[in-house]
């Protein structure tokens, strides 16, 4: 029997049919079996109906992309087959729910149809038809069925033995069907050593990192694809004395958090593009009042309502520039789900150290899809709070009105929290003097602007960017979820003897220009980004002279790139 080193699998059907949970069960089963998994969910902005699918790729070596192709396609309806069959490899298998059994070779794959619903009804649990399909999937790769059983026992523990047993019977039915009808097509997914890893999404990693950094307050308004951040925090924060507040609108999302931050909390808000648009005035407030706050912007297809459940990376300009007037800001963009944890934790340190808003950019592909990451390194990010001073230190200044905005060498003023004796002051959205009171004095205004704008110059993440083959003549540049695709394109090119560099920028503002220069200037730069305007490339061009040697590959159709497309276009450009 053919031994597989990896498997690409997809389940699709109408929304509300359990596509997502079916995908999760199969993925988690393979994850626990020891494989590294990547996933991608396609869904529409509605609750019931409409095609939805869940893609999973399991590999021995960890990847950051869910793959272009399919070995197995589970179709809970005919639309799934039509929409996705082109992804099937030669020799792939499509399983279709249909009224009766029919099995036959199609143009490049095998189509096997079974009356899954009828079988499930016969087993006494019509809901278990997806479990039969999972059984078929497992049998086709010779996965021991016990791998499903432990999962079923855990998943349905609360529902009792009857549900557990009927689901197990459904899985067994799937194995029996393969045995009877598809035994010639069975392959073996190679055994693998189990190691300690996590199965986590970008939203979960961001929330988890924030939680571990001491964030105990999150106010937000539900929005796709960011809602899971507030949902995760809503379940965890009360256990440690904090809370999530679902507030009345996006503006309240940021302004509640600003109030909490002013009072001394590590506070955050989470949103997507439309929410960031609404929060922009308050972003300016955070900037001028020097209030530390973390804002997560999980990007989706814009503009306006745009493609609310689709992927895009088109808010870059807004995150970098959005505001009237000019404010200090730090903009970070994890290039992997693993990095999302550490960057979220670092974001709170940076916000408090530099007393300014920190925006964490995510994108739908990074936010909503789970993958395998190594266990968290508890020592990597330490919690630091910058120039937060005590009552004694505040009193030592001996001021009737504490000079919250005092001029200092590094532009960062000692900060004291409300409730502290000796620190009474007003934070302000108006231009103000050192004591926080309104001023329109041109000299003070100029100095305050310089203080605020220059104080963040030294801000730096532990990993402001990642670079591979930095000395190559061609360098592929990306951000966020495009990393996984770029890595695989570079690998394909390397197999052909073409060596390209890869650069994944995680700190967009302040851009680490000096550190980036040797990898970009004098090279052929190709940015790969999901927006129309090549926003990342334009941002780099504002800082480094790469205009004549830089090009971009863009896609803004709502879907992430495929490796095959980027590979083809990179080859044309180099």
């Amino acid at each position, binding site marked *: 029997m053919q031994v597989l080193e990896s498997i690409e699998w997809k389940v699709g059907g109408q929304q509300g049919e359990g596509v997502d949970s079916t995908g999760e069960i199969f993925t988690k089963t393979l994850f626990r079996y020891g494989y590294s998994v990547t996933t991608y969910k396609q869904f529409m902005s509605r609750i019931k109906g409409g095609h939805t699918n869940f893609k999973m790729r399991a590999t021995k070596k960890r990847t950051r992309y869910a793959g272009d192709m399919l070995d197995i396609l589970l179709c809970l309806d005919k639309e799934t087959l039509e929409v996705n069959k082109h992804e099937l490899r030669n020799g792939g298998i499509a399983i279709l729910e249909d009224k009766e059994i029919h099995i036959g070779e199609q143009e490049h794959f095998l189509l096997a149809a079974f009356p899954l619903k009828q079988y499930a009804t016969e087993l006494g649990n019509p809901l278990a038809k997806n479990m039969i399909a999972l059984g078929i999937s497992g049998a086709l790769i010779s996965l021991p069925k016990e791998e499903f059983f432990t999962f079923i026992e855990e998943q349905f523990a609360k529902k009792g033995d009857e549900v557990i047993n009927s689901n197990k019977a459904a899985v067994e039915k799937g194995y029996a069907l393969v045995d009877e009808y598809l035994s010639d097509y069975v392959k073996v997914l190679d055994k693998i050593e189990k190691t*300690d*890893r*996590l*199965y*986590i999404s970008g939203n*979960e990693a961001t929330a*988890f990192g924030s939680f*571990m950094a*001491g964030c*105990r*307050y999150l106010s937000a308004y539900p929005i796709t694809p960011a809602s899971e951040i507030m949902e995760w925090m809503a379940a965890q924060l*009360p256990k*440690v*004395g*904090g*809370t999530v507040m679902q*507030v*009345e609108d996006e503006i*309240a999302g940021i*302004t*509640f*958090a600003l*109030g*909490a*931050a*002013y*009072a*001394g*909390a590590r*506070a955050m808000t989470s949103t997507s593009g439309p929410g960031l648009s609404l929060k922009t*005035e*308050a972003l*300016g*407030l955070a900037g001028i*009042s020097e209030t530390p706050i973390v804002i997560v912007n999980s990007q989706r297809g814009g503009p306006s309502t745009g493609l609310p459940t689709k992927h895009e990376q088109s808010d870059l300009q807004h995150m970098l520039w959005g505001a009237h007037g000019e404010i200090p800001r730090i903009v970070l963009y994890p290039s992997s789900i693993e990095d999302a944890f550490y960057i979220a*934790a670092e974001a709170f340190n940076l916000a408090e150290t530099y007393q300014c808003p920190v925006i964490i950019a995510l994108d739908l592909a990074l936010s909503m899809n789970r993958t395998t990451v190594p*266990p968290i390194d*508890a*020592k990597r*990010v*330490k*919690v630091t*709070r910058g120039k937060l001073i005590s009552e004694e230190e505040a009193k030592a200044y001996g001021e*009737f*009105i504490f000079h919250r905005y005092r001029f200092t060498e590094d532009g960062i003023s000692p900060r004291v*929290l*409300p*409730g*502290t*004796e000796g*620190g*009474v*002051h*007003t*934070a*302000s*959205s108006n231009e103000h003097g050192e004591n*926080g*009171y*309104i001023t329109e004095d041109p000299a003070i205004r100029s100095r305050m602007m310089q203080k605020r704008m220059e104080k963040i110059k030294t801000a730096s993440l532990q990993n402001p960017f990642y670079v591979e083959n930095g000395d190559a003549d061609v360098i592929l540049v990306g951000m966020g979820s495009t990393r996984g695709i770029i890595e695989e394109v570079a690998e394909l090119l390397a197999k052909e003897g073409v060596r390209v560099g890869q650069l994944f920028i995680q700190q967009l503002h302040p851009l680490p220009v000096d550190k980036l220069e040797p990898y970009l200037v004098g090279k052929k730069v190709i940015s790969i980004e999901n927006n129309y305007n090549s926003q990342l490339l334009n941002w780099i061009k504002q800082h480094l002279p790469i205009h004549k040697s830089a090009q971009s590959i863009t896609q803004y159709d709502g879907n992430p790139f495929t490796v095959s497309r980027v590979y083809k276009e990179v080859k044309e450009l180099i």
Partner: protein
Amino acid sequence: MATLKDYRGDLSTWCPGCGHFSVMAGIQKALINLGYEPHEVAIITGIGCSSKLSEYTRTYGFHTIHGRSLPVAQGVKMANPNLKVIAAGGDGDGYGIGLGHFVHAVRRNIDMTYVAMDNNIYGLTKGQTSPRSAHNFVTKTTLKGNKEYPVDPLSTAIANGGTFVAQAFSGDIKTMTEILEKALQHKGFALVNIFSPCVTYNKVNTYDYYKDNLVNIDAPLATREEAIKVVKEHDGLVQGVIYQEERDDFQTKLGIDWKILDVKTGEMDEALLRQTEAMFK
């Protein structure tokens, strides 16, 4: 014990005769009478003439953006329940651009006081109509008279579950200060709408107008229905605590052992990390 001098902040830029002077004095007096020190209080304001209160009163303060005093103030209280939190601003700030927050703050019932300084006009932008301007009120932007009808903040608050709804007049400092003291002692969201005449731009809603027209409500009405009825009967021109109800405030209802400000510096709590990590396995 703190004195008025301790509460004196930046020099005021309000017009001579502005109602806001008395409102500020009333707030400071009420805080002193109740024994608060300036560092125990946070005054959060929006934007407008009245919102400068946070600069002119020496307590902790945040002079925020237009219409957002309530969300910022609620965030402050959520993080530090020990602070005495007051949100303040004008009628444009609170009932125009900030009206959405107002209704939600009322129904949420966080333990804080909201002082709306209501002069029925936009002052800082020099005399345009406000959401509290009367029907047919003539301003620079309503040349033939305002064809809208004013927001009724008292009825809105009462109808949406407000637990303390009061109205005062800056021309009657004694009553206003008493009402403010009650509001500050109320455990929950307390609204005090204060008629605070704009002597520069509003020649209709003057000190004399309120002196002649305000009706005293000696005790809170027994039910919400009766309270709204009384407000409507007098076209909103009432003075006193109109409605009050004891109900657990939002933070008490959540029943969380609050540790929002307890941020531990140094290495991450590894035990918590590993325990939380388990859900991703």
